[in-house]
């Protein structure tokens, strides 16, 4: 079966969720109570705005991830043909990984791998 048939799975998923949501929307009871629609914060009204600038220290991780993920994508085709190409492929990937490893080591030593 050809790859375009993936759309079938997409559609089945969407229809599945949609139908069940509609069904549940019909059978589920509804009651109106203004407090019910408040966001849950342990029974206390939320203080301030929720969508604030939020400092999560993973900016550096995101960049590192980009570097390494692109590398993974590059390595996949190499991995497929590795057996056929032989020694040359191995030497190349050692060099490639060595450079990457240096990068990781640099980030490590610069304490970039610590979540702030």
């Amino acid at each position: 079966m050809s790859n375009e048939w993936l759309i079938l799975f997409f559609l089945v998923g969407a229809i599945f969720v949609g139908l069940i949501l509609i069904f549940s929307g019909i059978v589920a009871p509804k009651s109106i109570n203004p407090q019910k629609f408040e966001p849950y914060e342990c029974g206390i009204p939320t203080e301030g705005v929720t969508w604030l600038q939020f400092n999560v220290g993973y900016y550096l991780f995101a960049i590192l991830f980009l570097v390494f993920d692109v590398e993974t994508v590059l390595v996949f085709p190499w991995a497929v043909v590795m057996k056929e190409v032989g020694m040359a492929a191995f030497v190349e990937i050692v060099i490639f990984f060595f450079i990457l490893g240096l990068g990781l080591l640099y980030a490590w030593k610069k304490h970039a791998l610590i979540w702030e």
Partner: protein
Amino acid sequence: MEEKVKNITTDEQQEYVINMGPQHPSTHGVLRLVVSLKGEIVKSVQPHIGYIHRGIEKMCESITYPQIIHLTDRMDYLSAHINNEAVCLTVEKALEVEIPDRIKVIRTIMSELTRIQSHQLWWASFGMDLGGLTCFFYGLRDREKILDIFEETCGSRMIVSYNCPGGLMYDIHPNFQKRVKEFIKYFRKILPEYDQLLSGNVIFHERSKGIGKLTLEDAVSYGITGPSGRASGFSCDVRKHEPYSAYDKIKFKEILFTEGDTYHRYIARIDEMWESMNIIEQLIDNIPEGPYAVKMKPVIKLPEGEYYQRVETARGELGVFIISDGNKSPYRVKFRSPNFVNLSVLNHIAKGFKIADLVAIGGSLDLVIPDIDR
């Protein structure tokens, strides 16, 4: 426009205020912590308490001394028996009643059993705070065995109400000694499993070592008692310093560490369970013969004066301060509850750690909310 941008970049704007509690899975009770976060880092913790304030101190002013005892059960419900004992000891001290050895020994055994079951529940919920749900069931499974012993002797499982001024409500059940010995044998086998499951675990070490450090100086200044204080090196075991009941006759060691982090607060409690088992083993075979209660007057009136009694509950030092004006009910009762004082240090030690650590620190302080609110 420019002002708006400025506002966003200032530190106050970055603060993210979150309520943990009163309806939160990790605060064991209705404790509300208002946590200011910066990213994941805790900037300050403000405890808001009083959700179950019942005014026990005020209620005590209008009831008689034997009736006070059953109210103290409801303060620290996990150390119910020890709380009872504290009030009884105060009344007995005030009336200068001589208590026979049998009562003292039984009270001590019961106190230590109470301590073990309290620590078991703490272990269970602490494991759950860290995300290891299995601990909860193991802890409660073993605690059940002690509660069965309690139920057989006292008639109820947790809120025992077993003490009365001048002795005990009933004598111990004939099976008591046999069952306690069985339990000790069982628990000595089980306790190493706790270590394997949680304390030996590398994830647990990472989560707890160096987290929430409390120095000795701060521990004394904040008055942190109990295992939490002793983990910081604060020698505050009332059983050693001001022995009551049968603690002066037995040999046991005070568990002391110097590090004062979450890990050592944990280890202090685990070691205390071992120590409690030692204490019980020393006493269980030699319970002296004698009456289980001293005959007291039907209406107990304390002579005018002030009385203070300290006991060591599972969480720290409980003080009962009674001012009597000679009537059948006290003029003023103050309970110096260990949890109330231990809570006050939370902001100090949780600052600068992550929100997950706050949960771990809170768990390691072993707070029981009804004791805070009283």
